[in-house]
């Protein structure tokens, strides 16, 4: 296991959007940390606040309407939220970089790949243009683009989706960041290409010893690449633990629901256990546990009490009254 | 297998028949849009200007302080005063009253010219976009030709052919506006034609006419309506321009563009004769533009979600 101290710590992060229709609590009390060389997965359904967590770390919350209303993001011990714009700019792309979901739209269509690579390098390193160019070449080679020299001069539309995602990764790696945030980097890709890209991530991590935050909604991907996972629901983490724990002894009803609702190739064919209902409107969350309206194990108390994230096991946190009680009993009983 | 009506769910007699519901609900979409418009300050101003315009047109005889044709040649070019709020013109007519009556003309111009442009433009554009291929080719080449023809000159030539009159100016302005509509409708149809719900309607066996009129065109309504609103302003401007060149309304019609032309000779001595009709045109066009802008935002599908 990773014994070093965490490179990035997020504490009690609240990111809200103040809109005319109400306050959207996109991120509502997220805590996690990550150590160098570790991969943390963030899973959850669409709209659960995964991307906004990432954007908060990057300091890229569109403002207005967005605002980080509470919490701390400590990178290498320093709170990013107190940094000036300029300081943040120097961290983005250099210390912490990000790969986005849709490689088709994340590259500027009117600039060559080379330009888009170089500008990152030039923005952060005191390189000459030529040095930057050779660095760019090196990067393309690193992410496995064949014939990189020729490809540098190409425009994004001349690349396939998988290749573009590789370019995106190359750009993210340009300045050897300590943290790489990947926001659903394979969702838009075909399975065979997804396999290639995931492979690339693993390889890069081995070589560069980065911390990776892997955002996804695919439990398969989590199982494949993550060391630890945080499951999010309606802006809040509901379960946070090591990957193996999650799959072996996942506790939160939502986590379990998710796992039962996905068909798998190997399991015997049987009726899927769907989670009823739809995710809540973040503008008007139900009182109590946000998941309560869809929860199979809902209790009277769930409708009133919003549970807190409770450690049920070593490094295994769950936000559910079911476990809170047992836990508190545990605390009380000895 | 069968999908015969299941007897269990009790039919609710309280429900009005579906036809009625369509009516009320279809209106609701527009009510939504309207609410959005009213919420935006600028488009509300636009709406107010248009409302004032319409009311003025309707109640012109009540609002006007004088007859709009009565002359008082001896007292021509009177500056604005308590008697003549906006002064008098070259024949001693009350400018305020003429402007008030002029709103009728402007509304007429806007509505008729845009009506012509819209009807023809929508037919051409939707046929071209929907059927594509050679029909599209032919129609779009015609549109290209009309576009390549400088529009004001086209209007001038048309009025020259038809003879100068307000009606003919409206027709000319309408014809000149066709390509805009045709192109907007065509591109809207082209994109909507590719959507899955159009494919779905084909898959359930709908005929072309049904697909086009029930599914494609209603979904082009937003750009068409926006374009129409904005075009009304342009049409009023264009017609005023034609009148300015002496090719529009005939005297003593109080058309604003014509008033401007007639007052033009006195710009040094009686600038109000020029200033006020021009201001009236400006205000009305502004009203339609503000409203059209608001509509565009209100009907923008992106803002709906």
């Amino acid at each position, binding site marked *: 296991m990773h014994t070093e101290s965490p490179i990035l710590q997020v504490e009690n992060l609240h990111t809200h959007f103040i809109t005319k229709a109400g306050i959207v609590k996109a991120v509502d009390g997220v805590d996690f940390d990550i150590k160098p060389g570790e991969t943390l997965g963030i899973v959850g359904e669409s709209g659960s606040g995964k991307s906004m967590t990432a954007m908060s770390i990057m300091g890229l919350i569109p403002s207005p309407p967005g605002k980080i209303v509470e919490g701390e993001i400590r990178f290498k011990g320093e709170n990013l939220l107190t940094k000036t714009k300029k300081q943040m700019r120097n961290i983005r792309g250099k210390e912490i970089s990000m790969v986005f979901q849709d490689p088709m739209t994340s590259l500027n269509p009117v600039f060559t790949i080379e330009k888009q690579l170089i500008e990152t390098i030039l923005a952060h390193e005191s390189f000459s243009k030529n040095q930057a160019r050779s660095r760019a070449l090196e990067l393309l080679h690193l992410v496995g683009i064949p014939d990189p020299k020729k490809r540098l001069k190409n425009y994004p539309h001349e690349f396939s989706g998988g290749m573009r995602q590789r370019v995106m990764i190359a750009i993210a790696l340009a300045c050897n960041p300590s943290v790489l945030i990947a926001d659903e980097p394979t969702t838009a890709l075909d399975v065979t290409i997804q396999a290639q890209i995931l492979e690339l991530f693993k390889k890069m991590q081995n070589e560069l010893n980065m911390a990776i935050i892997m955002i996804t909604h695919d439990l398969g991907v989590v199982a494949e690449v993550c060391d630890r996972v945080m499951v999010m629901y309606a802006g809040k983490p509901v379960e946070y633990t090591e990957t193996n724990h999650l799959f072996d002894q996942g506790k939160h009803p939502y986590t379990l629901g998710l796992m039962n609702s996905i068909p798998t190739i190997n399991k015997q064919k049987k009726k899927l256990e769907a989670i009823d209902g739809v995710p809540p409107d973040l503008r008007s969350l139900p009182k109590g546990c946000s998941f309560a309206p869809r929860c199979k194990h809902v209790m009277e108390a769930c409708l009133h009490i919003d549970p807190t994230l409770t450690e049920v096991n070593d490094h295994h946190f769950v936000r559910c009254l079911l476990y809170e009680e047992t836990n508190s009993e545990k605390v009380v009983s000895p | 297998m069968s999908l015969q009506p299941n007897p269990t769910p009790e039919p609710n007699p309280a429900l009005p028949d579906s036809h009625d519901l369509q009516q009320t609900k279809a209106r609701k979409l527009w009510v939504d849009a309207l609410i959005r418009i009213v919420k935006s300050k600028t488009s509300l101003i636009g709406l107010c200007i248009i409302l004032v315009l319409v009311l003025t047109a309707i109640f012109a005889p009540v609002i006007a302080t004088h007859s709009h044709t009565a002359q008082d040649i001896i007292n021509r070019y009177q500056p604005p005063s308590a008697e003549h709020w906006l002064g008098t013109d070259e024949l001693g007519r009350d400018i305020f009253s003429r402007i008030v009556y002029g709103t009728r003309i402007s509304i007429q111009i806007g509505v008729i010219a845009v009506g012509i442009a819209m009807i023809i433009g929508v037919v051409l554009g939707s046929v071209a976009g929907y059927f594509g291929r050679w029909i599209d080719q032919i129609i779009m080449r015609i549109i290209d030709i009309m576009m390549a023809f400088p529009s004001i000159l086209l209007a001038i030539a048309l009025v020259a052919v038809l003879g100068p009159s307000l009606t003919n100016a409206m027709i000319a302005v309408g014809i000149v506006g066709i390509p805009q509509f045709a192109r907007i409708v065509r591109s809207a149809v082209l994109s909507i034609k590719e959507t899955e719900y159009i*494919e779905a309607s084909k898959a359930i066996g709908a005929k072309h006419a049904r697909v086009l009129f029930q599914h494609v065109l209603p979904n082009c309504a937003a750009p068409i309506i926006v374009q129409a609103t904005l075009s009304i302003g342009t049409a009023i401007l264009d017609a005023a321009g034609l009148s300015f060149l002496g090719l529009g309304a005939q005297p003593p019609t109080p058309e604003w563009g014509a008033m401007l032309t007639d007052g033009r000779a006195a710009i040094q001595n009686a600038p109000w004769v020029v200033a006020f009709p021009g201001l009236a045109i400006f205000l009305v066009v502004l009203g339609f533009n503000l409203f059209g802008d608001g509509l565009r935002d209100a009907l923008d599908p992106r803002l709906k979600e």
Partner: protein
Amino acid sequence: MSTLLEVTNLKKHFPLKDSKLFSREKPVLKAVDGISFSIQSGETLGLVGESGCGKSTAGRSILKLINPTEGDIYFKGENISHYRGEKLRKLRKDMQLIFQDPYASLNPRKTIAQTITEPMKIFQLSKEEQYKKLERLLDVVGLRSYHKDRYPHEFSGGQRQRIGIARSLALDPELVICDEPVSALDVSIQAQVINLMEDLQEEFNLTYIFIAHDLSVVHHISDRVAVMYLGEIVEIAEANELYQDPKHPYTQALLSAVPEANPHLEKQRIILKGDLPSPANPPSGCKFHTRCPFAEEICRQEKPELKQVSSNGQMAACHFVREVVS
């Protein structure tokens, strides 16, 4: 069980905008390039493959929403590939389509009631029948009666997909082609819709062609699965058989690439090199040879036929899989 649909050598070539001014030969994009299969009534055939391999085009060609370039389609024994106009319209009753995008597949200006009853109007059901059927359909897809006067934008993705399903069932079809009906939905919702579709199939004895790129979903719902690559079927078999013992190297790679939600599973992964070639300019011989880990000279030269490779009807198109004659 009887054969409901049989497709032989179906091709759909899209003309590309000619790039050369005066070239005689018009370049085409071979979106579907000679596929054959048949479906028994009540069965679900899964169609999988990577993006752009021609799954949707195949579906649309079968429905004759687009005219196939070549090939025959037998529906209930009748060759419908030359149907046009009114005859084709009549046929629409029996074959329906469910779309991928729950947002784009519903006319935003029509209420749910209008959307669902439209096919009935077209086929001239009486008002009363329409009304009754509407209620029933809403019920079977799990919507409430009071929903019917709402507009699509007032619904969530999953609900919209239900509306689409209701519409496609309005005419009591026999065959429903589902073009990625769940891939735009969240996992938790996806399961709801899959369950619904399974229930409906049972209730109305529907026959599905289920198009998807998610292999697990296809596996879950299909009786048989056909794997497509660049407009061709490379393997087709009973679902379990295919998943347990894929014969074609592409199928093998595809299956191995699926991330399993099981961290303990140490899978032997076949990582394919490169990307899917363009269907406008497909490779010679076996179209898969450019990415195949086992490719040899013959693959570049000769196009393998789809042949039977196991005694219970599994078929694959690969030079290196032994043909089995049952």
